[in-house]
């Protein structure tokens, strides 16, 4: 091995421009893979975060009551009637109880990060001739913020310490309805309760639907607005990993007699789009690797042709086929490792240069154009993929070198 490694190393060093060219080919492939993977993963994460960020990953509600068939109630007595239609009963009660006990139970499931009870409902906000429909969420602000992060998006006022007569709304609603911080507004719930609130905070999340149609109040305020008494309408759960929602929801459903909803079921079409995007990304990366492998194989084949005489001489001195195979495979490995290292460095520098490019600000909030996340698995994966591809590319010329007949090459 020491002979083979030494010879491979000397070949690479004496190869000069040829070695640099192959290292560059690998490095460019690694850089491209890191760039594409990071960019698309960043876009996806931002997209999923924008989509799922303000939502609970799992929501627990009261189960829908079982249908009570007409047929079942008419089976006894004379003059029976047959039921031809089975209708779902209109839900009578939506309050979840005992919610404090359920919160404790749910928090014990593995993967659960935060549990918060909430009262949610619809309400109208009237400003002049305009009426806006809002989804009002009422909960304890500090815990609510862990489910739907408002504090980080707050552009004016307060949120975490609001009182029972205070309301936090989105920037688009404030803009369209001409509401300013400290203004008094009236909300009328679908239960017919009208209540006045002072606008204590305004947030801008970038999600139009949320910025226009969501309002946040305390739990007590929502209980009063939606007439739930001391109860809540749902228990909201945030997980460590949003993509575990289906699995954990299933586990919860097995042990708890409630309706458990996962965000993934509601957003299946988006997940399919993400899967398609991932497949496209992986295919692009595979083609990049393939192209660089062909380039490397070509250069190594030329190198073997150039060194035919030397291979013959080494064989005349007792070098075995497998030793020659190893020499050229090690050359490929050397190129692959150097290329992977340089590619990771270039990839890092490229991402660094893109990291702080801003996009146009809205409501005074400046966001970055690219969501760059330095994921070691992307860097490591790109390096390993390039090393494997380069080694495969090196095997062909290495085998060709190993099979050379010393008589033929010495005779020339």
């Amino acid at each position, binding site marked *: 091995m020491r002979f083979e490694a030494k010879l491979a190393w000397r070949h690479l060093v004496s190869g000069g421009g040829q070695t640099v060219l192959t290292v560059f080919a690998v490095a460019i492939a690694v850089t491209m893979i890191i760039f594409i993977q990071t960019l698309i993963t960043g876009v996806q994460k931002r997209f999923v975060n924008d989509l799922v960020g303000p939502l609970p990953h799992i929501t627990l509600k009261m189960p829908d009551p079982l249908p009570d068939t007409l047929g079942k109630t008419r089976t006894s007595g004379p003059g029976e009637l047959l039921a031809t239609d089975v209708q779902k009963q209109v839900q009578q009660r939506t309050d979840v109880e005992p919610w404090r006990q359920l919160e404790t139970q749910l928090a014990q499931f593995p993967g659960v990060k935060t549990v918060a009870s909430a009262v949610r409902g619809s309400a109208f906000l009237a400003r002049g001739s305009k009426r806006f429909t809002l989804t009002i969420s009422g909960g304890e602000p500090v815990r609510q913020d862990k489910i739907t992060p408002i504090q980080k998006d707050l552009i004016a006022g307060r949120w975490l310490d609001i009182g029972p007569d205070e309301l936090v709304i989105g920037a688009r609603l404030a803009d369209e309805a001409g509401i300013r911080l400290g203004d008094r507004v009236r909300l009328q719930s679908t239960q017919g309760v009208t209540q006045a609130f002072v606008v204590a905070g305004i947030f801008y999340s970038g999600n139009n639907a949320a910025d226009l149609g969501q309002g946040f109040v305390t739990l007590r305020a929502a209980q009063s607005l939606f007439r739930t008494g001391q109860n809540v309408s749902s228990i909201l759960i945030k997980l460590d990993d949003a993509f575990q929602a289906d699995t954990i929801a299933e586990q919860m459903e097995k042990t708890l007699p409630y309706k458990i909803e996962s965000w993934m079921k509601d957003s299946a079409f988006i997940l399919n789009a993400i899967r398609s995007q991932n497949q496209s990304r992986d295919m692009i990366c595979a083609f990049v690797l393939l192209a660089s492998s062909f380039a490397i194989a070509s250069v190594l084949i030329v190198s073997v042709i150039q060194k035919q005489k030397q291979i013959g001489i080494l*064989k005349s*001195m*007792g070098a075995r*086929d497998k030793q020659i195979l190893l020499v050229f495979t090690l050359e490929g490995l050397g190129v692959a490792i150097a290329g992977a290292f340089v590619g990771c460095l270039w990839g890092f520098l490229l991402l660094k240069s893109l990291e702080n490019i801003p996009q146009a600000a809205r409501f005074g909030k400046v966001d970055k154009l690219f969501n760059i996340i330095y994921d070691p698995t992307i860097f490591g994966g790109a390096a390993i993929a390039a090393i494997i591809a380069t080694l495969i590319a090196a095997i062909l010329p290495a085998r060709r070198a190993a099979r050379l007949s010393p*008589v033929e090459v*010495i005779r020339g």
Partner: protein
Amino acid sequence: MDNPLVEVIGLKKTYNSGTDKAVEVLHGVDMTALGGQFIAIVGQSGSGKSTLLNILGALDTPTEGSVLIDGIDISSLDSDGLASVRGNKIGFVFQFHHLLDEFSCLENALMPVTIQKGAPSREDTAYAIKLLERVGLGTQLKKRANQMSGGQQQRNAIVRALTNRPRLVLADEPTGNLDARSGAEVFALMREIAAEMGVAFLMVTHDDRLARQADRILRIEDGFLHEDTPGR
């Protein structure tokens, strides 16, 4: 009488064997060589000299007959077995030095040992330096092949053929690429080393003047081997 170091019995070599383009180059060669003998192989171009040398050097295999090198019948060996015989029993000197440009004079000299052992031992290195000093390259140890003269390169190649302590050295026109003076020096050197080390030297040459100085002359004509008397 000593056991022969090289024993060739009924050696035939046919290229493209089994096809209508089959060409028999050697038609049944018998020969022996003893340790310490310096043998010149002469003959016209295309007579089969290099083919014989390649088979004796375990670079090629015979179509028929047997070739014993230091008691090992190389005609029955596989590729690894042949490589092992080449690495341990045989040294080669070619018309062109074929030194590796990426390595120094000393590293080139140690190449056969490095191939066999992975890395040379201290004793191997000391032995190679001794041989390089013997051929007048003691001050050139760290020089690359392309930094030496033609004569120096060929002397380096001779030392390379000896560092694995072979029993047989095969030289294919070793002076053919050198000027007359360097050629004479290299030839004299090989002659001395053969006698000093008890190594059998088989040298293919076109130069009758050099051949006449060998212990034996083997002449190949149309695939048949005849022994000439040296000094005639």
